[in-house]
Protein backbone atom coordinates (compact mmCIF):
# COMPACT_ATOMS: atom_id res chain seq x y z
CA UNK A 1 0.00 0.00 0.00
CA UNK A 2 2.88 2.36 0.86
CA UNK A 3 4.58 1.52 -2.44
CA UNK A 4 1.38 2.18 -4.38
CA UNK A 5 0.86 5.46 -2.52
CA UNK A 6 4.42 6.63 -3.25
CA UNK A 7 4.03 5.86 -6.95
CA UNK A 8 1.37 8.50 -7.51
CA UNK A 9 4.36 10.31 -8.96
CA UNK A 10 6.84 8.52 -11.20
CA UNK A 11 9.86 7.00 -9.38
CA UNK A 12 12.61 4.56 -10.13
CA UNK A 13 13.52 1.76 -7.72
CA UNK A 14 16.36 3.45 -5.89
CA UNK A 15 14.51 6.71 -5.19
CA UNK A 16 11.37 4.81 -4.27
CA UNK A 17 13.28 2.84 -1.65
CA UNK A 18 14.73 6.07 -0.25
CA UNK A 19 11.24 7.55 0.04
CA UNK A 20 10.14 4.46 1.97
CA UNK A 21 13.14 4.62 4.31
CA UNK A 22 12.71 8.39 4.83
CA UNK A 23 9.14 7.71 5.96
CA UNK A 24 10.16 4.97 8.37
CA UNK A 25 9.40 1.95 6.22
CA UNK A 26 12.51 -0.22 5.98
CA UNK A 27 12.28 -2.29 2.82
CA UNK A 28 15.27 -4.00 1.24
CA UNK A 29 15.89 -4.22 -2.48
CA UNK A 30 15.33 -7.96 -2.48
CA UNK A 31 11.76 -7.35 -1.37
CA UNK A 32 11.05 -4.12 -3.25
CA UNK A 33 12.02 -5.11 -6.80
CA UNK A 34 10.17 -8.45 -6.91
CA UNK A 35 7.18 -6.62 -5.37
CA UNK A 36 7.27 -3.97 -8.10
CA UNK A 37 7.33 -6.72 -10.74
CA UNK A 38 4.37 -8.48 -9.17
CA UNK A 39 2.37 -5.24 -8.98
CA UNK A 40 3.23 -4.52 -12.60
CA UNK A 41 2.18 -8.02 -13.69
CA UNK A 42 -1.13 -7.42 -11.88
CA UNK A 43 -1.63 -4.24 -13.90
CA UNK A 44 -1.39 -1.89 -10.91
CA UNK A 45 1.84 -0.29 -12.09
CA UNK A 46 3.37 0.57 -15.40
CA UNK A 47 7.08 0.91 -16.06
CA UNK A 48 9.39 2.26 -18.76
CA UNK A 49 13.14 2.51 -19.24
CA UNK A 50 14.43 6.05 -19.64
CA UNK A 51 17.85 7.64 -19.58
CA UNK A 52 18.54 9.96 -16.68
CA UNK A 53 21.92 11.28 -15.56
CA UNK A 54 23.57 9.30 -18.37
CA UNK A 55 22.16 6.02 -17.07
CA UNK A 56 19.21 3.89 -18.05
CA UNK A 57 16.67 3.69 -15.26
CA UNK A 58 13.35 1.96 -14.98
CA UNK A 59 10.57 4.33 -13.87
CA UNK A 60 7.38 3.06 -12.27
CA UNK A 61 4.01 4.78 -12.04
CA UNK A 62 0.57 3.91 -10.74
CA UNK A 63 -2.03 2.94 -13.39
CA UNK A 64 -5.73 3.82 -13.24
CA UNK A 65 -6.41 0.30 -11.92
CA UNK A 66 -3.65 0.80 -9.36
CA UNK A 67 -5.27 4.04 -8.14
CA UNK A 68 -8.59 2.23 -7.72
CA UNK A 69 -7.00 -0.62 -5.75
CA UNK A 70 -5.07 1.86 -3.61
CA UNK A 71 -8.32 3.63 -2.77
CA UNK A 72 -9.91 0.31 -1.72
CA UNK A 73 -6.87 -0.62 0.36
CA UNK A 74 -6.91 2.79 2.07
CA UNK A 75 -10.59 2.39 2.94
CA UNK A 76 -9.90 -1.05 4.42
CA UNK A 77 -6.93 0.38 6.32
CA UNK A 78 -8.99 3.27 7.75
CA UNK A 79 -11.80 0.92 8.72
CA UNK A 80 -9.33 -1.46 10.42
CA UNK A 81 -7.66 1.46 12.19
CA UNK A 82 -11.00 2.73 13.44
CA UNK A 83 -11.99 -0.76 14.67
CA UNK A 84 -8.73 -1.25 16.55
CA UNK A 85 -9.00 2.22 18.04
CA UNK A 86 -12.51 1.53 19.27
CA UNK A 87 -11.35 -1.77 20.86
CA UNK A 88 -8.42 0.02 22.51
CA UNK A 89 -10.72 2.76 23.72
CA UNK A 90 -13.12 0.28 25.29
CA UNK A 91 -10.65 -2.29 26.67
CA UNK A 92 -7.19 -0.75 26.48
CA UNK A 93 -8.08 2.77 27.74
CA UNK A 94 -5.98 4.34 24.95
CA UNK A 95 -6.14 4.85 21.21
CA UNK A 96 -3.55 3.43 18.84
CA UNK A 97 -2.23 6.95 18.43
CA UNK A 98 -1.67 7.43 22.14
CA UNK A 99 -0.14 3.96 22.36
CA UNK A 100 2.19 4.76 19.49
CA UNK A 101 2.95 8.18 20.93
CA UNK A 102 3.98 6.57 24.21
CA UNK A 103 6.59 4.35 22.51
Amino acid at each position, binding site marked *: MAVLAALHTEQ*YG*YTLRKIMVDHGIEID*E*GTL*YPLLRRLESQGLLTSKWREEQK*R*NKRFYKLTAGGKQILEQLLNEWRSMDSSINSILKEYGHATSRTVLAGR
Partner: protein
Amino acid sequence: MQLLERYLQAVKFWLPKEQKEDIIAELSEDIRSQIDEREAALGRKLNEPEMESILKQRGRPILVANRYLPQEHLIGPVLFPIYRLVLKVVMLCYVAPWTVTWIALLIFNSGYAAKFVGHSWVEALGYLWASLWSTAFLAAAIVTLIFAILERVQLKNHFLEEWDPRKLPPVNNPNVISRFNSIVELAANLFFCVWWTAHVSSHVVFNQPNLRISLAPTWRYFFWGFLFIAFINIALAAVNLARPYWTARRATFRLVSDIAGSILFCWLLKSNLLVEIAGASISPAKAGQLTAAINLWMARMFPVAVIFGVVIAVVNIFRIVRVSAPQTHIPGERPAMA
Protein backbone atom coordinates in the same frame (compact mmCIF):
# COMPACT_ATOMS: atom_id res chain seq x y z
CA MET B 1 33.71 -2.72 -10.60
CA GLN B 2 34.85 -6.19 -11.58
CA LEU B 3 33.46 -7.48 -8.30
CA LEU B 4 30.07 -5.99 -9.20
CA GLU B 5 30.12 -7.67 -12.62
CA ARG B 6 30.95 -11.00 -11.00
CA TYR B 7 28.11 -10.52 -8.53
CA LEU B 8 25.62 -9.71 -11.27
CA GLN B 9 26.74 -12.70 -13.29
CA ALA B 10 26.22 -14.98 -10.28
CA VAL B 11 22.70 -13.60 -9.71
CA LYS B 12 21.91 -13.87 -13.43
CA PHE B 13 22.71 -17.59 -13.45
CA TRP B 14 19.69 -18.34 -11.18
CA LEU B 15 17.16 -16.05 -12.83
CA PRO B 16 14.36 -17.19 -15.16
CA LYS B 17 15.60 -17.10 -18.77
CA GLU B 18 13.01 -14.68 -20.17
CA GLN B 19 13.61 -12.08 -17.40
CA LYS B 20 17.39 -12.39 -16.94
CA GLU B 21 18.42 -9.27 -18.86
CA ASP B 22 15.65 -7.06 -17.55
CA ILE B 23 16.17 -7.95 -13.89
CA ILE B 24 19.96 -7.67 -14.13
CA ALA B 25 19.72 -4.25 -15.81
CA GLU B 26 17.52 -2.96 -12.99
CA LEU B 27 19.59 -4.59 -10.21
CA SER B 28 22.79 -3.24 -11.76
CA GLU B 29 21.31 0.25 -11.93
CA ASP B 30 20.18 0.05 -8.30
CA ILE B 31 23.60 -1.05 -7.01
CA ARG B 32 25.36 1.58 -9.13
CA SER B 33 23.06 4.28 -7.71
CA GLN B 34 24.00 3.14 -4.20
CA ILE B 35 27.70 3.18 -5.09
CA ASP B 36 27.38 6.67 -6.62
CA GLU B 37 25.72 7.95 -3.49
CA ARG B 38 28.40 6.46 -1.21
CA GLU B 39 31.17 7.86 -3.40
CA ALA B 40 29.55 11.31 -3.42
CA ALA B 41 29.35 11.24 0.37
CA LEU B 42 32.97 10.11 0.78
CA GLY B 43 34.31 12.34 -2.02
CA ARG B 44 36.32 9.45 -3.50
CA LYS B 45 36.00 6.11 -5.27
CA LEU B 46 35.04 3.13 -3.15
CA ASN B 47 37.82 0.70 -2.32
CA GLU B 48 37.46 -3.08 -2.55
CA PRO B 49 36.41 -3.76 1.09
CA GLU B 50 33.70 -1.06 0.85
CA MET B 51 32.48 -2.59 -2.39
CA GLU B 52 32.45 -6.03 -0.77
CA SER B 53 30.43 -4.63 2.12
CA ILE B 54 27.75 -3.26 -0.25
CA LEU B 55 27.46 -6.59 -2.07
CA LYS B 56 27.42 -8.55 1.16
CA GLN B 57 24.59 -6.40 2.41
CA ARG B 58 22.64 -7.20 -0.80
CA GLY B 59 22.82 -10.92 0.00
CA ARG B 60 24.05 -14.17 -1.50
CA PRO B 61 23.37 -14.24 -5.27
CA ILE B 62 21.13 -17.32 -5.16
CA LEU B 63 18.98 -15.76 -2.42
CA VAL B 64 18.68 -12.48 -4.33
CA ALA B 65 17.65 -14.37 -7.49
CA ASN B 66 15.29 -16.57 -5.51
CA ARG B 67 13.09 -13.57 -4.62
CA TYR B 68 12.32 -13.06 -8.29
CA LEU B 69 11.30 -16.70 -8.82
CA PRO B 70 7.78 -18.00 -8.29
CA GLN B 71 7.29 -19.64 -4.88
CA GLU B 72 7.50 -23.40 -5.45
CA HIS B 73 7.28 -26.37 -3.15
CA LEU B 74 7.12 -30.11 -3.53
CA ILE B 75 4.48 -30.49 -0.82
CA GLY B 76 2.71 -27.32 0.29
CA PRO B 77 1.61 -26.21 3.76
CA VAL B 78 -1.92 -27.55 3.25
CA LEU B 79 -0.87 -31.16 2.63
CA PHE B 80 2.31 -31.17 4.69
CA PRO B 81 0.75 -32.10 8.08
CA ILE B 82 -1.05 -35.06 6.42
CA TYR B 83 2.16 -36.05 4.63
CA ARG B 84 4.10 -36.00 7.88
CA LEU B 85 1.45 -38.11 9.64
CA VAL B 86 1.34 -40.69 6.80
CA LEU B 87 5.13 -40.86 6.74
CA LYS B 88 5.22 -41.49 10.50
CA VAL B 89 2.57 -44.22 10.24
CA VAL B 90 4.32 -45.90 7.29
CA MET B 91 7.67 -45.81 9.08
CA LEU B 92 6.14 -47.12 12.30
CA CYS B 93 4.26 -49.90 10.47
CA TYR B 94 7.43 -50.91 8.68
CA VAL B 95 10.28 -50.28 11.12
CA ALA B 96 8.57 -51.50 14.30
CA PRO B 97 7.41 -54.94 13.00
CA TRP B 98 10.71 -55.42 11.21
CA THR B 99 12.70 -54.72 14.37
CA VAL B 100 10.46 -57.01 16.46
CA THR B 101 10.84 -59.80 13.84
CA TRP B 102 14.60 -59.31 13.84
CA ILE B 103 14.82 -59.49 17.64
CA ALA B 104 12.58 -62.59 17.62
CA LEU B 105 14.86 -64.20 15.01
CA LEU B 106 17.88 -63.41 17.18
CA ILE B 107 16.27 -64.97 20.24
CA PHE B 108 14.57 -67.99 18.74
CA ASN B 109 16.52 -68.87 15.61
CA SER B 110 19.88 -70.21 16.69
CA GLY B 111 21.10 -70.39 13.07
CA TYR B 112 20.38 -66.70 12.53
CA ALA B 113 21.80 -65.68 15.91
CA ALA B 114 25.02 -67.60 15.16
CA LYS B 115 25.84 -64.93 12.53
CA PHE B 116 26.35 -62.41 15.31
CA VAL B 117 28.44 -64.52 17.67
CA GLY B 118 31.61 -62.59 18.45
CA HIS B 119 30.13 -59.30 17.21
CA SER B 120 29.20 -56.36 19.41
CA TRP B 121 25.61 -55.18 19.68
CA VAL B 122 26.56 -52.06 17.71
CA GLU B 123 27.60 -54.27 14.78
CA ALA B 124 24.39 -56.24 15.11
CA LEU B 125 22.38 -53.00 15.00
CA GLY B 126 24.40 -51.93 11.95
CA TYR B 127 23.39 -55.17 10.25
CA LEU B 128 19.74 -54.48 11.10
CA TRP B 129 20.00 -50.94 9.71
CA ALA B 130 21.69 -52.17 6.50
CA SER B 131 18.81 -54.51 5.78
CA LEU B 132 16.22 -51.96 6.89
CA TRP B 133 17.14 -48.66 5.29
CA SER B 134 16.74 -49.45 1.58
CA THR B 135 13.10 -50.49 1.95
CA ALA B 136 12.41 -47.69 4.44
CA PHE B 137 13.94 -45.21 1.98
CA LEU B 138 11.84 -46.64 -0.87
CA ALA B 139 8.65 -46.45 1.25
CA ALA B 140 9.41 -42.80 2.14
CA ALA B 141 10.13 -41.99 -1.52
CA ILE B 142 6.84 -43.54 -2.66
CA VAL B 143 4.85 -41.61 -0.02
CA THR B 144 6.64 -38.38 -1.01
CA LEU B 145 5.93 -38.99 -4.70
CA ILE B 146 2.23 -39.65 -4.06
CA PHE B 147 1.94 -36.45 -1.99
CA ALA B 148 3.83 -34.42 -4.60
CA ILE B 149 1.26 -35.58 -7.19
CA LEU B 150 -1.61 -34.84 -4.77
CA GLU B 151 -0.16 -31.34 -4.26
CA ARG B 152 -0.32 -30.67 -8.01
CA VAL B 153 -3.89 -32.01 -8.19
CA GLN B 154 -4.88 -29.94 -5.12
CA LEU B 155 -3.46 -26.77 -6.70
CA LYS B 156 -5.64 -27.36 -9.77
CA ASN B 157 -8.84 -28.76 -8.24
CA HIS B 158 -8.71 -27.41 -4.65
CA PHE B 159 -10.28 -30.70 -3.58
CA LEU B 160 -9.39 -30.10 0.08
CA GLU B 161 -11.62 -27.04 0.13
CA GLU B 162 -14.68 -29.25 -0.47
CA TRP B 163 -15.73 -30.67 2.87
CA ASP B 164 -18.81 -31.53 4.86
CA PRO B 165 -18.98 -30.73 8.60
CA ARG B 166 -21.39 -33.67 9.06
CA LYS B 167 -18.64 -36.07 8.03
CA LEU B 168 -16.37 -35.01 10.89
CA PRO B 169 -15.55 -37.91 13.26
CA PRO B 170 -17.51 -38.06 16.53
CA VAL B 171 -15.98 -36.54 19.65
CA ASN B 172 -13.36 -38.97 20.87
CA ASN B 173 -14.20 -40.34 24.29
CA PRO B 174 -11.99 -43.30 25.23
CA ASN B 175 -14.47 -44.37 27.89
CA VAL B 176 -17.16 -45.06 25.30
CA ILE B 177 -17.19 -48.66 24.04
CA SER B 178 -17.93 -49.16 20.37
CA ARG B 179 -21.11 -51.28 19.97
CA PHE B 180 -19.60 -52.82 16.87
CA ASN B 181 -16.62 -54.03 18.93
CA SER B 182 -18.96 -55.49 21.55
CA ILE B 183 -20.95 -57.35 18.87
CA VAL B 184 -17.75 -58.73 17.32
CA GLU B 185 -16.48 -59.79 20.75
CA LEU B 186 -19.78 -61.45 21.59
CA ALA B 187 -19.93 -63.33 18.26
CA ALA B 188 -16.27 -64.39 18.42
CA ASN B 189 -16.59 -65.73 21.98
CA LEU B 190 -19.84 -67.57 21.18
CA PHE B 191 -18.23 -69.13 18.14
CA PHE B 192 -15.18 -70.05 20.25
CA CYS B 193 -17.34 -71.74 22.91
CA VAL B 194 -19.23 -73.81 20.33
CA TRP B 195 -16.04 -74.83 18.50
CA TRP B 196 -14.15 -75.47 21.77
CA THR B 197 -16.78 -77.76 23.29
CA ALA B 198 -17.43 -79.56 20.01
CA HIS B 199 -13.85 -80.27 19.01
CA VAL B 200 -11.40 -80.13 21.90
CA SER B 201 -13.34 -81.26 24.93
CA SER B 202 -11.39 -84.53 25.06
CA HIS B 203 -7.62 -84.75 25.52
CA VAL B 204 -7.55 -86.58 22.14
CA VAL B 205 -8.09 -83.45 20.12
CA PHE B 206 -7.78 -85.04 16.69
CA ASN B 207 -8.71 -88.62 16.03
CA GLN B 208 -8.82 -89.66 12.41
CA PRO B 209 -7.70 -92.99 10.88
CA ASN B 210 -4.57 -91.39 9.39
CA LEU B 211 -3.77 -88.92 12.18
CA ARG B 212 -4.20 -88.87 15.96
CA ILE B 213 -3.16 -86.02 18.23
CA SER B 214 -3.31 -86.53 21.99
CA LEU B 215 -2.70 -84.02 24.77
CA ALA B 216 -1.65 -84.52 28.37
CA PRO B 217 -4.38 -85.15 31.01
CA THR B 218 -3.74 -81.60 32.31
CA TRP B 219 -5.56 -80.44 29.20
CA ARG B 220 -8.85 -80.58 31.12
CA TYR B 221 -7.72 -77.65 33.26
CA PHE B 222 -7.04 -75.60 30.16
CA PHE B 223 -10.24 -76.72 28.51
CA TRP B 224 -12.41 -75.63 31.43
CA GLY B 225 -10.28 -72.59 32.19
CA PHE B 226 -10.50 -71.10 28.68
CA LEU B 227 -14.19 -71.97 28.46
CA PHE B 228 -14.85 -70.19 31.76
CA ILE B 229 -12.94 -67.10 30.57
CA ALA B 230 -14.92 -67.13 27.31
CA PHE B 231 -18.18 -67.15 29.33
CA ILE B 232 -16.96 -64.16 31.36
CA ASN B 233 -16.07 -62.37 28.13
CA ILE B 234 -19.52 -63.12 26.67
CA ALA B 235 -21.19 -61.70 29.78
CA LEU B 236 -18.93 -58.63 29.71
CA ALA B 237 -19.51 -58.02 25.98
CA ALA B 238 -23.29 -58.34 26.49
CA VAL B 239 -23.23 -55.77 29.31
CA ASN B 240 -20.95 -53.51 27.26
CA LEU B 241 -23.38 -53.74 24.36
CA ALA B 242 -26.26 -52.64 26.56
CA ARG B 243 -24.26 -49.98 28.40
CA PRO B 244 -21.54 -48.85 26.01
CA TYR B 245 -19.23 -46.99 28.38
CA TRP B 246 -16.52 -48.25 30.70
CA THR B 247 -17.05 -48.29 34.43
CA ALA B 248 -14.33 -48.97 37.00
CA ARG B 249 -16.07 -52.25 37.95
CA ARG B 250 -16.30 -53.56 34.40
CA ALA B 251 -12.77 -52.43 33.60
CA THR B 252 -11.60 -54.40 36.68
CA PHE B 253 -13.52 -57.48 35.50
CA ARG B 254 -11.82 -57.15 32.12
CA LEU B 255 -8.42 -56.89 33.83
CA VAL B 256 -9.05 -60.01 35.91
CA SER B 257 -10.34 -61.95 32.89
CA ASP B 258 -7.36 -60.92 30.74
CA ILE B 259 -4.80 -61.71 33.47
CA ALA B 260 -6.43 -65.12 34.01
CA GLY B 261 -6.34 -65.80 30.24
CA SER B 262 -2.68 -64.75 30.04
CA ILE B 263 -1.63 -66.90 33.01
CA LEU B 264 -3.49 -69.88 31.60
CA PHE B 265 -1.91 -69.42 28.19
CA CYS B 266 1.61 -69.02 29.65
CA TRP B 267 1.11 -72.17 31.74
CA LEU B 268 -0.13 -74.01 28.63
CA LEU B 269 3.06 -73.11 26.75
CA LYS B 270 5.28 -74.51 29.52
CA SER B 271 3.29 -77.67 30.28
CA ASN B 272 4.58 -80.03 27.52
CA LEU B 273 0.98 -80.50 26.57
CA LEU B 274 1.44 -82.48 23.38
CA VAL B 275 1.82 -86.15 24.27
CA GLU B 276 1.41 -88.00 21.03
CA ILE B 277 1.23 -87.52 17.31
CA ALA B 278 0.52 -90.72 15.49
CA GLY B 279 -0.20 -91.18 11.83
CA ALA B 280 -0.16 -93.84 9.16
CA SER B 281 2.45 -91.95 7.15
CA ILE B 282 4.65 -90.92 10.14
CA SER B 283 7.11 -93.32 11.74
CA PRO B 284 6.98 -93.49 15.56
CA ALA B 285 10.50 -92.06 15.77
CA LYS B 286 9.61 -89.13 13.52
CA ALA B 287 6.36 -88.55 15.45
CA GLY B 288 8.35 -88.49 18.70
CA GLN B 289 10.74 -85.93 17.28
CA LEU B 290 7.87 -83.82 16.01
CA THR B 291 6.11 -83.93 19.39
CA ALA B 292 9.27 -82.90 21.20
CA ALA B 293 9.94 -80.09 18.69
CA ILE B 294 6.41 -78.65 19.04
CA ASN B 295 6.60 -78.77 22.86
CA LEU B 296 10.03 -77.11 22.70
CA TRP B 297 8.79 -74.32 20.44
CA MET B 298 5.77 -73.74 22.65
CA ALA B 299 8.08 -73.44 25.67
CA ARG B 300 10.28 -70.98 23.78
CA MET B 301 7.28 -68.80 23.06
CA PHE B 302 6.77 -68.40 26.82
CA PRO B 303 8.72 -65.09 27.20
CA VAL B 304 6.81 -63.53 24.30
CA ALA B 305 3.51 -64.61 25.86
CA VAL B 306 4.59 -63.11 29.19
CA ILE B 307 5.45 -59.80 27.48
CA PHE B 308 2.06 -59.73 25.73
CA GLY B 309 0.34 -60.57 29.00
CA VAL B 310 2.10 -57.71 30.80
CA VAL B 311 1.24 -55.26 28.00
CA ILE B 312 -2.43 -56.32 28.12
CA ALA B 313 -2.48 -55.93 31.92
CA VAL B 314 -0.89 -52.45 31.70
CA VAL B 315 -3.48 -51.34 29.12
CA ASN B 316 -6.25 -52.60 31.40
CA ILE B 317 -4.78 -50.87 34.46
CA PHE B 318 -4.48 -47.65 32.49
CA ARG B 319 -8.17 -47.97 31.55
CA ILE B 320 -9.17 -48.41 35.21
CA VAL B 321 -7.14 -45.32 36.19
CA ARG B 322 -8.68 -43.31 33.34
CA VAL B 323 -12.22 -44.35 34.21
CA SER B 324 -11.67 -43.62 37.91
CA ALA B 325 -10.26 -40.13 37.23
CA PRO B 326 -12.70 -37.18 37.36
CA GLN B 327 -14.31 -36.77 33.94
CA THR B 328 -15.12 -33.72 31.88
CA HIS B 329 -18.70 -34.32 30.83
CA ILE B 330 -19.27 -34.31 27.09
CA PRO B 331 -22.77 -33.11 26.19
CA GLY B 332 -24.98 -35.87 24.80
CA GLU B 333 -22.93 -38.68 26.31
CA ARG B 334 -23.34 -40.63 29.51
CA PRO B 335 -20.49 -40.08 31.92
CA ALA B 336 -18.45 -43.05 33.11
CA MET B 337 -19.75 -44.33 36.45
CA ALA B 338 -17.96 -46.28 39.10
